[in-house]
């Protein structure tokens, strides 16, 4: 097994809160520069910049693209949905669009939502407000993504806004999430007590600006940097696993848990 670093949550210029500099091409370039083996494009409630992301990754070796979206559930929980194949992600994107509240974006308030190609040419603007909410309940979304062979990660569960715990108060029964994402300041040991032991923690950058890509990432011990290997590593199957930061660097007293529960 080899250790590969993956950043599984990144926004492009299409996300209203994303920097206009963050074209799919530059995101791929940043991933290569920061030695990320895998990087996921996860704009808010859309996959429309994934074709450019795929094309950019195809031009350069060294990084595996993962296609997805950060979907807002009916409970207003942010959920990262990931797929191996561009075509699957685009079909899923069309499904999400049908379930997104039909509210028009106001660029003066939320920013433009440009759909671009691999050469950063603007193909058009998404006019529906992408930071809106879908009518898909968490468990419905969970089932939809899994039926399409995807992975489901609850985003930034430690945050007081749009997180599983802020919206639902406690871990919900009857969901089969593949992982939970923790923000930079959150400590695993604090959240471990609130999440079932079978659900692993990952770290993603949730980058909205190019300079934040890979700011935090997750190390996976895998045979190759592929989506199937990633899925196995999240399950801890056949020797694939998440490599905790403590196994990568020598732990210091500052990095040890201050809030054991």
């Amino acid at each position: 097994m080899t250790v590969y670093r993956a950043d599984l949550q990144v926004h492009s210029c299409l996300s209203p809160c994303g920097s206009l500099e963050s074209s799919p091409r530059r995101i791929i370039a940043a991933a290569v520069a920061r030695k990320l083996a895998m990087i996921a494009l996860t704009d808010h409630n859309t996959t429309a910049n994934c074709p450019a992301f795929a094309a950019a990754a195809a031009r350069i070796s060294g990084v595996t693209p993962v296609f997805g979206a950060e979907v807002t559930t009916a409970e207003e929980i942010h959920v990262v949905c990931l797929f191996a194949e561009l075509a699957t992600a685009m079909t899923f994107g069309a499904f999400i669009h049908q379930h997104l509240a039909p509210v028009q974006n106001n660029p003066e308030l939320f920013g433009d939502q440009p759909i671009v190609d691999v050469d950063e040419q603007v193909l058009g603007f998404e006019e529906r407000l992408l930071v809106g909410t879908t009518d898909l309940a968490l468990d419905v979304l969970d089932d939809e993504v899994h039926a399409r062979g995807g992975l489901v990660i609850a985003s930034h569960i430690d945050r007081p806004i749009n997180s599983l715990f802020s919206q639902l108060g406690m871990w919900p029964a009857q969901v089969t999430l593949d992982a939970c994402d923790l923000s930079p300041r959150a400590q695993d040991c604090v959240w471990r007590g609130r999440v079932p032991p079978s659900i692993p923690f990952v770290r993603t950058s949730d980058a909205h600006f190019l300079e934040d890509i890979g700011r935090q990432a997750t190390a996976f011990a895998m045979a190759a940097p592929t989506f199937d290997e990633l899925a196995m590593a999240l399950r801890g199957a056949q020797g694939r696993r998440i490599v905790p930061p403590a196994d990568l660097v020598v732990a210091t007293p500052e990095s040890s848990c201050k809030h054991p529960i």
Partner: protein
Amino acid sequence: MTVNEIVSALGLAVVSELQDSAVTGAYAADLLSDVVGNAQPGNVLITVQVHRNVVAVAGLVGLAAVIITHGRVPDSDVLTAARDNNVTVLTTAESSFTVAGRLYALGVRSA
């Protein structure tokens, strides 16, 4: 004031089994983390939240009842969980604002 009196006064629909009990006050929120942190035992909760966890949180806090507003209807599995856990779930077409105002007019306070 009791749950039964509130159901009658506001014309609420009882969608699980009604457990009549004294109401200590009311709390309005849609974020269940906020409900866990701030609602009091015996409160009625006014919310648009229909996720199953609303039942779990009602049990945890000891809410007298949950009033789901704005015409939202919980799924049948949520109502089954409510019956299994003796949580009273009530629905109304009125908004949370209107329900809160009407409860306040009846003398119900936050506590």
